[in-house]
């Protein structure tokens, strides 16, 4: 049961990163890639009907974490108190900037929300990357399984860490570059003309950086947490994951070069998926590693809810996921194709 729920939560988080990832990436590029209000309207419309649903994956995985692993939810959310609150504020600012931008034709109104959208999307991605890196690096868990981390201490990985240190900042930068490419590929799919060409060019510009950062983060992870390789040695098939990551990276560039945007976007989704699966595979069965004493780490067994809760949960969860997938297919089909300003009744 623990194994199943571990992977169910992981799948939901991957769905969140892949789906909300592209609209976050669009947020980063929103000002950089556009030249006029019409183009900015286009980028907003490209994500308008879907961003809210994408974000629901975050809430749904949070809720699932809460009932399947209450100890982890309690420990991690209180321990990462300050960054989580900042994330909440950024989510609020980002939500209103997407939705309220179009409510006025005033130039200052639109420019204000354009800037806010860019700012909040960029910082959110960095915090998400740093958060994942924190979980890989580990935290100073006490004997009661709680901890509390300040935002930063001395920027070093050591016995007295902060949320931000050199390792977690690398995590943030990897996330930023990866999701910016993801967003650019989505824009290439959803737009045409000059905007599409600029989106494609952005991918080529950043691709080399992503390759270097991916390798760098891999090396850094092994240096910070050597034990993350244990599962790989125990199950050598897991070494297929980094191979798949490399294949997806190659796919992004080659499909991008020939203008096959949709295939390149799928490769980027694959890249994000395998990066996350690779990280999570290194953790299993630990949910939150302790940096002081491995025995204090929060494991699946320690954190798992009661058996009845999980059995019942499995039934409604499966049913609910089928419905959710049906809604997503429905919405993405309805708003498929290139964004067309003016022609249709929907917009921002």
């Amino acid at each position, binding site marked *: 049961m623990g194994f199943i729920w571990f992977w169910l939560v992981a799948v939901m988080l991957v769905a969140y990163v892949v789906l909300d990832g592209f609209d976050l990436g669009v947020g980063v590029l929103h000002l950089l890639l556009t030249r006029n209000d019409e183009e900015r309207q286009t980028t907003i419309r490209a994500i*308008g*009907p*879907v961003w*809210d*649903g994408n974000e*629901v994956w975050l*809430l*749904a995985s*949070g*809720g*699932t974490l*809460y*009932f*399947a*692993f*209450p100890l982890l*939810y*309690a*420990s991690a*959310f*209180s*321990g990462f*108190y*300050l960054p*989580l*609150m900042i994330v*909440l*504020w950024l989510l*609020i*600012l980002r939500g*209103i900037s*997407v*939705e*309220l931008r*179009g*409510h006025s*034709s005033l130039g200052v109104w639109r420019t204000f929300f354009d800037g806010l959208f860019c700012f909040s999307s960029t910082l959110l991605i960095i915090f998400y990357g740093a958060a994942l890196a924190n979980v890989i690096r580990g935290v100073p868990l006490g004997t009661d399984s*709680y901890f*509390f981390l300040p935002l930063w201490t001395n920027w070093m990985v050591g016995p007295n860490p902060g949320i931000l240190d050199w390792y977690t900042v690398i995590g943030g930068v990897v996330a930023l570059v990866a999701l910016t490419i993801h967003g650019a590929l989505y824009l290439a799919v959803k737009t045409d003309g000059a905007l599409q060409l600029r989106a494609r060019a952005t991918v080529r510009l950043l691709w080399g950086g992503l390759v270097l950062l991916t390798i760098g983060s891999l090396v850094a992870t092994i240096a910070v947490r050597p034990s993350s390789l244990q599962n790989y040695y125990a199950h050598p098939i897991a070494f297929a994951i980094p191979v798949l990551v490399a294949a997806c990276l190659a796919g992004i560039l080659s499909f991008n070069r020939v203008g096959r945007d949709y295939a390149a976007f799928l490769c980027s989704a694959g890249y994000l998926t395998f990066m996350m699966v690779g990280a999570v595979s290194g953790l299993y069965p630990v949910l939150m590693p302790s940096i002081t004493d491995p025995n204090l780490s929060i494991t699946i067994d320690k954190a798992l*809810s*009661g*058996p*009845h*809760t999980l059995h*019942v*949960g499995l039934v*409604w*969860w499966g049913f*609910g996921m089928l*419905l*959710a997938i049906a*809604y997503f297919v429905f*919405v993405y089909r*309805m*708003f498929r194709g290139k964004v067309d300003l003016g022609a*249709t*009744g*929907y*917009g*921002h």
Partner: protein
Amino acid sequence: MDALALHRLHFAFTITYHYLFPQLTMGLALLILVLKTIAVRRNDEQYHEAARFWGKIFAINFVMGVVTGIPMEFQFGTNWSQFARITGGVIGQPLAMEGVFSFFLESAFLGVLLYGEKRVSKWMHWFSAFMVFFGSWISGFFIIVTDAWMQHPVAYRIMANGQYEVTSFWALLLNPWGLLQYAHNMCGAVVTASFVMAAVGAFYLLEKQFVEYGRIFLKVGVIAGVVACVAIIFPTGDLHGKYVAHHQPVSMAAMEGLFHSGKGADVVLMGQPDYASGKVDNPIVVNNLSSFLIYGTTKAEVQGLDQFPRDQWPTTLPLLFYAYHIMAGLGTYFVALMLLAALMLWRGKLYTSRWIQWPLMLSFPLPYIANTAGWMTAEIGRQPWVVYGLMRTDQGFSKYVSASNSLFTLLGFMGLYVVLSILFVVLVYKEIQTGPHKAAAVPTLTVS
């Protein structure tokens, strides 16, 4: 303030602000469905446009509800981690179900309702209005199930590690406390929406703008309002109150300001409870009414606060007393106003009688106050427990999140919500001023 007080204020502030928006969207979703149904059945473009207009108001409120709602789910873990750790196996379930069953659905169909009218058939568009209504009402249900378990824990067992786990899924969902509270609460949401709709209608008639729409809004608002205002008192409020009196008698005694037990307990309509002397100052009293309301007979014995040890009393007693009385007093006013307005509508005089349109226009903030006061009654009445009878509130907060950190983020939320409030008021005012389109035009929505 100490850490406990700040964590409580943190949750109280963010949830109170958040609930200003869902109470309208849940009620409005029903009223939009009514408008849409009439529009489709009669093929009436004016009702279609009325539904579109309220769809725009709905969208602004929905966004506010979404962005202020996300912090709620996280705060169980951030500020109340000891509580979350012990109870996740029970209430984590309805909270996760809300995300999985309600939010996905709402996000999908709201897009179709607001921007898909030209892309789908009229029945599909009606169906999306129905699904938005359905999604928001089951969302409310899962939240009430969560709160009901904290008020009246059922279907649980304690595991070896001290955590609670659910023993019967259906008993958790069908907690009698929750069903009563849900019925009462959803009436409250419809009261808010109907007052808002009636207020905009009255505004248009008084201002002689969009008169034909003003009539529709007044009619739908008043009819829905009179039904909801009656139902919120009888049967839902009546039954819920009796249930509270039986299962949380100390809370009921504090709500009523009843210090001493006795037969033929009175209801204090107004007054200032003084906990030092154990009496209510300047009371306006109806004799024996409390006994009658709870037990159906004027002579029944009602337990007063003196029956309970001091450490079981709700911790913020005067606020509880006032919150309850504000809710009940406003509820009485709502029934009176809406019955009068309904009478005028029936006699065909509502659209021409400005003296009734004025109070209808000005009363729209009051249901927000009444709903907030009702929730304060429920949640302050539950104190000093976070889970009634099982876990005290002072054992529930995050012990490693200091008072200073909690104050820091509380101030952050306060500042942010001031900004949201300004944006919200400006935008809603703008939509009301722009009004529905006069001709049967293509909806030129500019929002997401």
